[in-house]
């Protein structure tokens, strides 16, 4: 097989991997979603009133007001909003805040998703992506983007797996990694974190312009960054990450900045 052929095969595998990953995610999400269907949730509003909008956004007009003590049925949920049906059959949207103080038929307080505060991140799935650039070493000026999926075991501890792609002039490669995150103050709006990871880089092509003349290499990383919570489950994060890459029995150090978004569900 000629060089180009090898390149194509490598490409194809990477593409297949991404496609499979997406298909896997979609199937997984479909399963989670189908699992979410359950008996209708009927609640009683205990606040003085709750406004009902025609759509799930603060710009949509208010067309109905639920009174105190009125029973409502929760139909569906979108970020920050619930679709409800009032007793007289009117269907509309209320903010999660407006119906956070509701009780069940049994008189117990309703534990609605995305209403409770505190350790709400604990036990969530995390998905996100980031982009960045290598700043030092042989991979200087290589652009990189990554997509990741993981799980937040505790409010301050999470882990993820990451797939990324590197681009230099005339060369490109794949990056696979597994990372652990420690975020001691996740309840702060701007919250610092520490990351530790390990993984592998493999290049599609052998670039002659740069000294990074390896097909694949393993690496360890550590990074420092900060998350900024734009919304309840939407985070923008910046990080500086140091890569220690093993090349020819020597360890080379590269630095990279990353900027990305994460979301919890």
């Amino acid at each position, binding site marked *: 097989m000629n060089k180009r052929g090898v390149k194509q095969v490598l490409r194809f595998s990477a593409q297949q991997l991404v496609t499979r990953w997406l298909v896997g995610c979609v199937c997984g999400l479909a399963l989670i979603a189908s699992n979410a269907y359950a008996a209708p*949730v009927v609640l009683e509003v205990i606040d003085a009133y709750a406004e009902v909008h025609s759509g799930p956004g603060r710009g949509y007009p208010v067309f109905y007001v639920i009174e105190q003590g009125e029973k409502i049925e929760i139909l569906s949920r979108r970020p920050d909003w619930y679709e409800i049906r009032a007793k007289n059959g009117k269907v509309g949207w209320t903010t999660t805040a407006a119906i956070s103080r509701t009780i069940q038929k049994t008189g117990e307080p309703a534990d609605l998703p995305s209403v409770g505060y505190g350790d709400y991140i604990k*036990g969530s799935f995390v998905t996100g992506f980031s982009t960045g650039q290598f700043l030092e070493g042989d991979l200087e000026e290589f652009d990189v983007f990554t997509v990741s999926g993981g*799980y937040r075991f505790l409010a301050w501890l999470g882990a993820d*797996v990451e797939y990324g792609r590197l*681009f230099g002039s005339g060369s490109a490669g794949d990056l696979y990694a597994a990372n652990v995150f420690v975020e001691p103050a996740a309840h702060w709006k701007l919250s610092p974190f520490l990351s530790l990871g390990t993984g592998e880089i493999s290049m599609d092509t052998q670039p002659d312009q740069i000294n990074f003349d390896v097909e694949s290499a393993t690496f360890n990383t550590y990074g420092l960054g900060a998350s900024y919570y734009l919304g309840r489950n939407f985070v923008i994060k910046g990080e500086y990450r140091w890569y220690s890459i093993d090349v020819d029995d020597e360890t080379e150090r590269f630095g990279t900045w990353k900027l990305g978004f994460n*979301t919890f569900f």
Partner: protein
Amino acid sequence: MPKMIRFGVLLSCVLLGSLAHAAGGGKKGLKVNSELFDIGIIAGSINIEDFPSQFEPLLGVNITFKASEYFFLQYNFIQTEIGVSSVEANDAIAGFGLEDRDFTHYDLLVGYNIFQGEFFSSDGQANLSNLYVVGGFGDTEMGGESNFTYTIGAGYLIEFARKYLVRIDYRDYIFDSSLLVSEGEETIHNTQFSIGIGYLF
């Protein structure tokens, strides 16, 4: 590719573990049907710089996650074939021809809903609608090249039924290519117009 298999196994473990967790009702509290995701397919046309417009099938898939009232994240994958460039069509320049005529692109975008509104299709019928902008980055593979790509775009969506939506999108894929230049690289813009349908879940 043992490392890919290893990575695949690792990823499957995480997915399976998470599914088991979800099935076991890992989260406490009342269960409410969530509509945080939509999955869709698109068809359209793309205009690749230096190549003729593609009305050959441009097909794509996407998955969108609503992160908040205003923001969403979207993964896109599109595929088409590239036509014959003017350079190739010119007989005077012999010996130039691309073997690899597949154009594939995927990207990761963050979107912002600028104008949330309603679309009035008939009397007494209001469908939720949205005008949004997107931006992000991804990978474009064309003619044996693989390039880091910036994506910007705008779109409009209408939820025409309770669980279905229609999207009309404009996208610009921007990257540096050395395919048709003798030296160095040129920045090329590839604009796409597409229409798609999606399913909310």
